[in-house]
């Protein structure tokens, strides 16, 4: 726990240094006429001060029970989910809202948790139809048609 705190404080310190540097690049100006980098620079300094306090606190803090963050957790599901979502964003315009969302829902209903194919297909189809009617038709939100453009043109 203390080791983790120290690593975190070092990361914060480096981040604070980078932010202060960015602030200087943007020009600080003067207190009478502060420039775009003024607040950013001082936030960088504050982050560095806080990271130093965090680092020092890690030496004086009472040793707590080790927190179980990763062991025994099914964090691989999260990785699969995020990969699927980034892929969805990448193909969204090309495939279109309906197709990309349908395939995503199919993956979410079937790919991460045990589920029968029939139920996953039915839920995906019903969900996309309802979403299309509510958001596209009723609320008139504009979604890309993608490959289904000839049908919706």
């Amino acid at each position, binding site marked *: 726990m203390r080791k983790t705190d120290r690593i975190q404080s070092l990361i914060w310190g480096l981040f604070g240094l980078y*932010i202060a540097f960015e602030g200087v690049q943007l020009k600080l100006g003067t207190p009478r006429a502060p420039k775009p980098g003024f607040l950013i620079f001082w*936030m960088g300094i504050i982050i560095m001060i806080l990271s130093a306090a965090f680092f020092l606190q890690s030496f004086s803090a009472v040793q707590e029970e080790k927190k179980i963050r990763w062991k025994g957790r099914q964090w691989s599901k999260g990785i699969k*989910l995020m990969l699927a979502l980034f892929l969805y964003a990448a193909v*969204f315009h090309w495939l279109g809202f309906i197709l990309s969302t349908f395939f995503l*829902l199919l993956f979410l209903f079937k790919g991460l948790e045990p589920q029968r194919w029939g139920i996953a297909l039915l839920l995906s189809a019903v969900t996309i139809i309802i979403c299309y009617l509510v958001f596209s038709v009723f609320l008139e939100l504009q*979604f890309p048609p993608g490959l289904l453009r000839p049908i919706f043109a």
Partner: protein
Amino acid sequence: MDFLSGLQMGVATALQPMNLAYCFIGVLIGTLIGVLPGIGTSGAVAILMPATFTMPSVSAIIMLAGIYYGAMYGGSTTSILVNIPGEAASVVTCFDGYQMARQGRAGPALGIAAFGSFIAGYFGIAMISILAPSLARIAFDFGPPEFFGLMVLGLTLSTFLGSGSMIKALLMVALGIVFGCVGSDPISGTPRLTYGVKALLDGLDMVPVVMGLFGISEVLINLEQQEKRDIYETKIRGLLPNREDWRKSIKPIARGSAIGFFVGIIPGGTAVISSFVSYAIEKRISRHPEEFGHGAIEGVAGPEAANNAATFGSMVPLLTLGIPSNVVMALFLAALMIHGTTPGPLLIQNHPEFFWGVMISMIVGNLMLLVLNLPLIGIWVKILKVPYKILFPLIILFCLIGAYSVNLRVIDVAVMLIFGIFGYLMKKYEYEGGPFILAFILGPLLETALRQSLIISQGGLGIFVTRPLALTSLLIALLFLLFPLIPSIRTKREKFAE
């Protein structure tokens, strides 16, 4: 405009069929959000905000407000029946509400939660109607130094009142301010921290950031855990509390209403904090504190009243000063700006139909909630049984639609996903999202107020000393920063957090 004329205008606005319909949709969705664990009020308001873009501003706020206070009602149902809070502000209701359910008293627990929320809601609306116009008049004299002082106080309080490490909370505030600076400088237009990405010139949009931090990250956390929901199988009999229940609950409801409202007004004060404060006070002054945690109805009545009253209290700084006091109010600020209505001291004067319309609509909404929550308990219980593996794809879908529909750009979806990962790591390493988001939203306002103050004072910091309200706010903020250094206060804060 006088009080009676305002009320008349408000009634005319709120009772329009369309606004009644939006109010009903809002409270229904809010109750559903509150009942279902996995998506909080912030995420729900963020997701549904784009759906309000085509509505008039008063209708949009009526619906979003309905979602907000509706979620407070709904959250108590899962706390009492499942021992899982559907909404963070209902955590405390689990302590005694679930125990009451186990003793066969789920009905009175649900009933007193609903009635307590109802009474607190009306108290909150009455207080806003009285306080807001007066506060707005005082706020006319506020300048950049006063606004700077209040915002610093709000951010400091949000770190002090949080449950985790204060250093981590302050780091989140600083980080939020930095992220708030992404985009074009408000005065000179110079790009800052955009790395050449044109889409970032307008800054990071709040909606995808909130959805990522609170929606996507929550799904990631829940997916890796095996969720067990033991719904206490009991026949829910007798939703009306009996005379003894009322005797025990009426004073906690009154106290909870007052505590909740005034905690909600404080920037950084939230419904969660108000419910904990109410519970702690009721336990402290009770003649039978040993009953708390074992089915004391006071432990349900007070906190439920407090969390609902806090939702109304939190609207005061936004409507009168234009300063959001929590994440949901920050989203309301965004919604108002998108609709071209600027909250602040001039709101009540320039848009009385908006202010009074929303007030009257909240009166109607609270009545709708009482009707919805009690007879429909059976339906809410059935909904609770929907497995998470069916729910989470829907949550993800609504987040994706919400993020995209803000500006019709895929980059907002990408921002949401990145903040989803960020929010997940934050939760893993015990960093709080509330101070970050508040700072992210207040950061640009804070910077503008600071720079304007320095320009007015020609670079001197004395302006923050010579203006009484600015000085008072900054001194209080400093005190709250120094309090944790006092061992006895640090211990109390840590115990309260536990």
